[in-house]
């Protein structure tokens, strides 16, 4: 069959042409991709050179010793300095005994107490500013005459109110601290439990002294008339009963 042979030939030729076209396409694609990658590599090399240059510059600067230029501090340095000085200021305020923080509707005050170098309790007071200065809430113990003080001095004289309140609180905390220390350190001398009250402005206790093989039972009564002081105003000591021999 001559026709079959020609057809087969033609098919072979067609197939070859197709194959070559595909290969050509692939080759072109490959070349395109290579060109793309080459340009990208070139770009990256340029970028790397630029970064190297910048790095060298910075290192050069530091090595030269002009890191802290006082005339031109970096913004970061300024910020750190500001934070440090603010913290110190807040700590200073805290040490004065009365510190505060403004809130949305007023101010929140912290009254810190101490006695002879020992930091003791902190109390809080939240004041509203409008329509006039008044107490919103607080953590002051109920035996401190807060209502009295606020009635007399708030809203007109905030400074006096705070000063007096601080004195009351410091004195109370001081008296309490002294009473506790007294009970701790002189526990051998004291007989029974000392009697005191919430404000610690009246202290009664019994103790005994011995002299010449005789013991004298004594009772002491300390009255603190001034609520703003932590020292007693009246002390009464009496000797009870007969002198019992040791």
């Amino acid at each position, binding site marked *: 069959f001559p026709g079959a042979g020609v057809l087969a030939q033609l098919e072979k030729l067609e197939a070859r042409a197709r194959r070559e076209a595909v290969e050509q396409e692939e080759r072109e694609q490959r070349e395109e991709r290579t060109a793309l990658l080459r340009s990208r590599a070139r770009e990256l090399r340029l970028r790397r050179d630029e970064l190297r240059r910048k790095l060298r510059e910075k290192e050069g600067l530091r090595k030269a010793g002009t890191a802290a230029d006082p005339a031109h501090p970096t913004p970061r340095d300024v910020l750190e300095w500001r934070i440090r000085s603010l913290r110190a200021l807040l700590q200073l305020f805290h040490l004065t005994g009365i510190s505060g923080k403004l809130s949305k509707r007023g101010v929140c005050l912290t009254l810190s107490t101490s006695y002879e170098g020992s930091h003791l309790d*902190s109390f809080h007071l939240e004041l509203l500013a409008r329509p006039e200065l008044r107490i919103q809430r607080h953590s002051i113990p109920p035996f401190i005459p807060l209502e009295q003080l606020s009635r007399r001095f708030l809203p007109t004289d905030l400074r006096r109110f705070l000063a007096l309140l601080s004195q009351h609180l410091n004195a109370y905390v001081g008296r309490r601290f002294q009473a506790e220390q007294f009970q701790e350190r002189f526990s051998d001398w004291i007989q029974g439990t000392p009697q005191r009250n919430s404000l610690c402005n009246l202290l009664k206790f019994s103790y005994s002294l011995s002299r010449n093989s005789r013991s004298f039972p004594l009772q002491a009564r300390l009255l603190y008339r001034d609520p703003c002081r932590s020292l007693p105003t009246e002390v009464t000591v009496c000797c009870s009963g007969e002198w019992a021999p040791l």
Partner: protein
Amino acid sequence: MDETVAEYIRRTVLKIPRDEIKMMLQKWGFLSEAQLQTLNFHQIKDNISQEVVQLCEENAADIKQAAVLDIIYNHTYQNKRMWSVYQMRKTGEELEYFDLTDFKKKFKRRLQSALKNVTITFREYEDDAIWIRVAWGTPYRQPNQYKPSYVVYHSQTPYVFISASVLKSNLPLLCQALIVASNYHDIREMELRSHSLNSLKDIVFKRYSQNFHTYCPKPPQARAVEPGSVDLRIINENRSEKERIQRLNQEAFGDGPQPILQFAQYKLETMFKSSPEMDVLDKKEPFRCLVKFSSPHLLESLKSLAPAGMADAPLSPLLTCIPQKARNYFRIREKKGFFPESFVSP
């Protein structure tokens, strides 16, 4: 020793859990160490109490000592009782030098002048708390030791904590004696009740943790650590919402432990509001309704409502104002005058 005293001591000892009996008898201090050594605390409580009564017989106990044992029991198990808070008011502004002996004398005198048959017992505790136990009788009958009232008072404060007995009729007398002894003018009951005496004290003495804004840095452990998963594959979709709820909750409740209350009760005396078509009631009268929240620890459970997703944050101020207003019984009326208060002299 009186029969009734013996029986009372026996019944008091029976109330105490077996492991605590020795400790409580030691606190009582009425029986000597030697006598306590003779007791066998491993037998059944019936026998222990009988032996204790015998020892008390030897020491000739009277009702005064028995009452002290009862105070010790009730102080140890104070949370079994329901406590109410009363507030006193005074007119003068002089400073008080509270003298305990003076107080006790005045209190006893006032009560005993009105009612001869009373048993009054005092006991002071380390936290400046004065416990008073009063057993009530009538002019013709001896005091009933099984239904006493307990009063806890901290000197120089206007608050008294009372766990009254069932006999409410003696309350006015008790209140009178208290204001006379503590130098106050009048007394009224606050709308604050709980089983936890310490929590009531925390609320009125402002000892609970309120969220004050200060510049004092919070200690690092105060920050809540996220429990469990640090798996980076898990993304918290509602993180900002959760943080908002957390922030509002902290504003409302503070950081520390909440006072323990068992109830919050709201008595509504408001008009029923409905659309005009649904006119449910013919007459416009207040819709009487009582809403009561109860829980073993009410405030803690309210605090966890919003984070658990069961309520919207912020919670209603009616719920969050409880410690601040020092009340857990509210009456809600119509327009103004939300929380009525009234001072009544007895």
